[in-house]
């Protein structure tokens, strides 16, 4: 394998899992993957496959059961706990519950591997902390207690904390898990900014495949028998994501990167018209369990246009007009 000059992390036949006594519970087949500097990498895999274990192992919180982890060519075991903390930052899914801790103090804890035995915050540390707060737009929350923050604000504060830790690599376990849509995109935007503008390597796990595909530079796709890595588009072309859903009723549409349920088709309908209304009408028809046919045949739907305000459904026996997609779909089941 060709060594990437910007490569900052590489896993070589890494075995992860739990060891209790002499019993080893290896979770996955040996993993081989790499990460470059400034890359946003999404770790994808079904629930319980070992994503969190992998991320914990990369952070050094858990011993690998075999294989190697290299950070900039140096083995993870050759780092002291402190040195590792100066290179790798970590956010888990665990929600920090501390009362009487303000955001500034939380972020200041990121300076832990850089301060003296008493944890004294020097002027330089103070500037780094303020900068981290600024980058995450949390500077106005610095005196607010962590327990009073919303989920999204707390996550930003946690990100500010690893920014203050000033590590080249940031590992985040489901950083957007409990956020609403707006919060998810805000956090993801922040992560993207950090990786591209500040040259941080961010490795995060997520269940949001669509988000991962559209935003990340690289995906580590963990399947039961192997780890596939590559740009999201490479994996799409290789139809790799289909393996995620092999045994479930959800299917991944490689063409547009969306999901749908596998439903036996009830028939096909031709759609005539252009623009947004056509797109949404097609989506609704799909959801109702029909496919959109490419050639004009019965039944067909003519979508509203400038000189017509109705959806017109023409079958072999009748022509009906509807005021909304909702009405059209409700009647599809009966008519066709």
């Amino acid at each position: 394998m060709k060594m990437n000059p910007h490569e900052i992390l590489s896993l070589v036949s890494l075995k992860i899992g739990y060891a209790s006594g002499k019993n080893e519970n290896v979770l996955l087949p040996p993993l081989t993957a790499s990460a470059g500097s400034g890359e946003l990498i999404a770790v994808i895999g079904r629930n319980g496959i070992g994503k969190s274990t992998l991320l914990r192992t990369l952070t050094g919180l858990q011993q690998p059961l075999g294989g190697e982890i290299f950070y900039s060519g140096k083995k993870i075991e050759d780092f002291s706990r402190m040195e590792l903390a100066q290179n790798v930052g970590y956010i888990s899914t665990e929600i920090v519950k501390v009362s009487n801790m303000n955001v500034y103090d939380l972020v200041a804890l990121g300076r832990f591997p850089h301060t003296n035995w008493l944890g004294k915050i020097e002027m330089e540390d103070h500037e780094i902390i303020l900068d981290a707060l600024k980058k995450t737009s949390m500077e106005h929350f610095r005196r607010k207690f962590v327990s009073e923050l919303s989920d999204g604000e707390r996550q930003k504060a946690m990100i500010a904390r690893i920014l203050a830790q000033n590590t080249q690599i940031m590992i985040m376990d489901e950083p957007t898990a409990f956020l609403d849509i707006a919060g998810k995109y805000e956090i993801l935007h922040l992560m993207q900014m950090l990786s591209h503008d500040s040259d941080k390597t961010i490795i995060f796990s997520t269940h949001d495949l669509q988000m991962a595909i559209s935003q990340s530079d690289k995906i580590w796709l963990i399947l039961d028998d192997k780890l596939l890595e590559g740009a999201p588009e490479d994996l799409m072309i290789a139809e790799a994501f289909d393996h995620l859903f092999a045994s479930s009723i959800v299917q991944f549409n490689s063409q547009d990167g969306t999901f749908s349920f596998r439903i036996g088709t009830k028939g096909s309908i031709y759609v005539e018209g252009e623009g947004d209304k056509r797109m949404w009408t097609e989506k609704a028809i799909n959801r109702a369990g029909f496919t959109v046919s490419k050639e004009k045949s019965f039944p067909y739907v003519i979508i509203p246009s400038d000189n017509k305000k109705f959806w017109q459904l023409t079958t072999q026996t009748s022509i009906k007009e509807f005021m909304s997609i909702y009405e059209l779909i409700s009647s599809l089941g009966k008519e066709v």
Partner: protein
Amino acid sequence: MKTDIKKGLFADLKSARNNRIIFSGLLLLVLIVIILDIFLGSVSIKPSEVLKAVFTNADTSFATIILKFRLPKAITALIVGIALSISGLQMQTVFRNPMAGPYVLGISSGASLGVAFVILGFSSNITPDSLKGFGNWILVAASWAGAGAVMLLIMVISSKVKDIMTILILGIMLASGISAVVTIMQYFSNETMLKAYVIWTMGSLGNLTSSQLNVLLISVSAGVLLSLFSSKMLNALLLGENYAGSIGLNIRFARIVIFTGTSILAGSVTAFCGPIGFIGIAVPHIVRILFKTSDHRILIPGTILMGGAVMLISDIISQLPGSETVLPVNAVTSLIGIPVVIWVILRNRKYSGSF
């Protein structure tokens, strides 16, 4: 950016100034209650007599009361308050449990088991009177060992069970179990041993010999130094062990240092003064509210001052100034501590598990 830093620094300076004011206030409070504790007691002594006893070599009966009883008792109260409160603070952070404290989790019981082994188990020659010099160190070491053993047990349990209330109930079970063991030991011991032990369990702040006070002072100083050394580690542990590890804390080392400190603090007090409840759990909460911070570099000095003050106040109340009756100090600390504990439980419902 530069003005931002200045503004930030200004806010920090302001909060640093606030902290200084609170610290000065606490220091003043400690001084006042020390003086009150010396001036007030079941025998009413005129302030002029007190001053005469302290500053001259007058050999009056008042001087005896002041120098041999009240002064050592006030010093003991101060040390005991500091030790219990610091151990409570450390336990609350390490276990991430707002209800942790040496008394409620059975650490004090563990210490008393250690003491019971020494007094009831080893030698029939040991009586409180014979426990001088080196004997005191044996007693205190047994107490540390007992406290440490229970700490370890609670730690193993709380790594498996996360629920705060469950841990609390287990702590109570543990304390009951230990007291059952001690009862059985009492049943099999002879009269002298039994008497020695029963006198010990009644323990109060006022019964310490000067050599015992020395042992207590040295042990607690060591424990407090360890806790000051641990403040950075304790701050990291606030985030839980995963995060603490990820920012570079050596968890095993931190545990050993903090556990040693806590066992020494709680064990030493229990060895000489018997189990004293609710100071260790209540004082750290009062200090957190007062300083509005979770930073142990502020909480530990704050807890030292507040713990000493609260224990001295308890001692003053227990003497019921003006009357000749003396209440057990344990009753007073419970009455002061329990409302705080109840408040924490009620507030905890709202924040579900945070402290």
